[in-house]
């Protein structure tokens, strides 16, 4: 059974149709990149798969759970336990340190474990930045803290929306290499949205969306 199963997914915003019947299957442990130009519906698709938004029609099943059928509370719990999110913007709490921002994700999942947060940040090369506030970190470092925050609760699914959109090439490579290592070690599924073909190269499979429809679905060689 597919880990992510999307069938006939549609989404309307008023008179605008963002998704026009998406069918997609992703296997557990895959790294899938969703590509497309701005306004093609790729972020909408990610939001619907992540349960951040409700679909107008169609179905989304993750790990066998139909998320459209879940109540708000159950959906929050499901998201908390199954998924990790990385966005283009870091959405940090500015007055908390890097370690504390990671611990915040632990707190909402279960309980805080500072030692574990330190270990993960150190593993991502931020051992000397644990007590720095977000404003004291570079863009690349901030994005690595975002990754730490996303993976700290051992999610089965990592959803990333333009995670390197704000980074220069050097930091983009560093971030993607980090994700690659974690993906190799962590056995989680990655669904990454980007408009940058360079970023898409890191994925195992690239799904291209245009005008709310999948126009291409190909494996990276």
């Amino acid at each position: 059974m597919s880990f992510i199963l999307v069938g006939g997914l549609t989404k309307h915003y008023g008179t605008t149709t963002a998704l026009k019947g998406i069918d997609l299957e992703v296997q557990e442990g895959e790294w899938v990149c969703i590509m497309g130009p701005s306004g093609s519906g790729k972020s909408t698709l990610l939001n619907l798969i992540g349960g951040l938004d409700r679909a107008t029609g169609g179905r989304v099943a993750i790990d066998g759970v139909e998320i459209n059928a879940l109540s708000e509370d159950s959906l929050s719990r499901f998201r908390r336990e199954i998924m990790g999110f990385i966005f283009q913007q870091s959405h940090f709490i500015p007055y908390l340190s890097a370690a504390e921002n990671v611990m915040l994700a632990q707190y909402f999942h279960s309980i805080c474990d500072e030692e574990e947060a330190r270990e993960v940040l150190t593993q991502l090369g931020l051992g000397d930045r644990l007590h720095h506030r977000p404003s004291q970190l570079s863009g690349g470092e901030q994005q690595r803290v975002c990754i730490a925050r996303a993976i700290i609760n051992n999610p089965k699914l990592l959803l990333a929306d333009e995670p390197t959109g704000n980074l220069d090439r050097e930091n983009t490579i560093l971030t993607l290499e980090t994700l690659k290592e974690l993906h190799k070690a962590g056995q989680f599924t990655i669904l990454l949205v980007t408009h940058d073909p360079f970023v898409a190269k890191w994925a195992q499979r690239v799904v291209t969306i245009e005008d709310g429809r999948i126009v291409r679905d190909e494996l990276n060689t």
Partner: protein
Amino acid sequence: MSLIPEALVISLREGIKVIIVTILILSYLKEINQTHLNKAYFSGVIFTLIFSIGAALYLVIQGIDIRSEIASIIGLTFALLFIGSIGALYQYQGVNLFGPLKVITQFKRIRELIVFLVPLIMFLPGLIGSILHINMVSIIMGMAAATYLSASSGFALAAGIGLIISRVRWRIKIGSFFTPANLLLFFGIVLLIGGGIKGFAEMSLIPAVQMRVMKLFHDLVHMFITFLLIPDHPLIAGRMWNTIGFLFSAGAAEAFTIGLLLLPPSVFIYKTMAEPLPAFEAKTRGEMRKYIKGLKMERRRKSIPAALAMLVILLSWYTVREEGFNRWHNPKPIPVAESEGHVLIPLARPGMDVMDGSLHKFSFVHGDEIIRILVIKRPDGTLSVCLDACEICPPEGYAQRPKEGDLICIYCKTPIPLMTVGSPGGCNPIPLKALVGAKEAMIESAEILKKYQDVKTGKTKESIHKK
């Protein structure tokens, strides 16, 4: 409070007790998937109702009043539930207190019997006592129909409340907060708050517990210090009573009582929260954290009834802490004058008759001192005239317990039977020689002053040690 509304309050209170216990039991049985035991519980409730009405009717017909004994049974039940909850806590946490007998709790019939007994233990004494009291109220009022109608209204009101509650769809799973241990603890609290058999005045057992604690300390002090350990020690004679008296002062008794009552729930919370985490094999650290969180949440949830019990005890204590003493009859002394070496106590005045069986107090001023004298009719019809002080305690004096009719030392809470009032020694008030005439009782001032000085200077206490 008028007696007829009191009948309503009593029956309403009994009904609310039934509702609370029923909610707790049924929720718990649902939580542990033992709803088949509901039938045993309701059988117990019906049996208890029928038996209590039958027993009360029999007692009324036979003219037997066992309300005091019932109050003692309720107090004992409360104590057993409190102590039992600690035992159940250890049992629940893996310390097998039952030994090989534990296996019998696995039998369906035994479980049914235990659940059947819950209403008997929780409601039977209270219901019998309440019916007896309501019957007494109907006799006092001479309005049996109105009194019983009032009592029935209370039950009907409680039944209505129960019906409304049963229709409510609870979002909170009440049963998930309970284990057998904190269920017992909570049942104890229900008895503590609603264990009295009278109206509002006896809603709580706290004054009774406090009284017993005070008496216990008082007796211990007497037993150990006076008779066993240091009967003639030169350093501890005489004024030592004023030093150790704090042990059976009202404040100390309050503190001990509250400490005693808060002990089981405190132990409960401590044991529940501080229990080492059981081993758990988690695939990831996130899973382990989640497991720990779940366990902690579970423990917090199971501690809530104990915390609530503590809150109820403290609130109940706060609201009734003076009640026990305020209920005693302690009349304001009527000033009398000293004349020609004598103090004259009037035997009757408009609205006052010293032969009415109630405690009467008089006072006269000597120098800077106000000396109190108590006068009371004994069961044999004679009049006792005494100093309002005893040989042992500081001269706090005595009050009369309206229910029992006897005197009680305000300082150490020792009850004094009326037959011994007027006899010298021990905890009795110090008797005064009085010449009782038709209108007055005459006492020599010199005798009053000498005996009062002995009390004040501690001479009476020294004499105890020389005995």
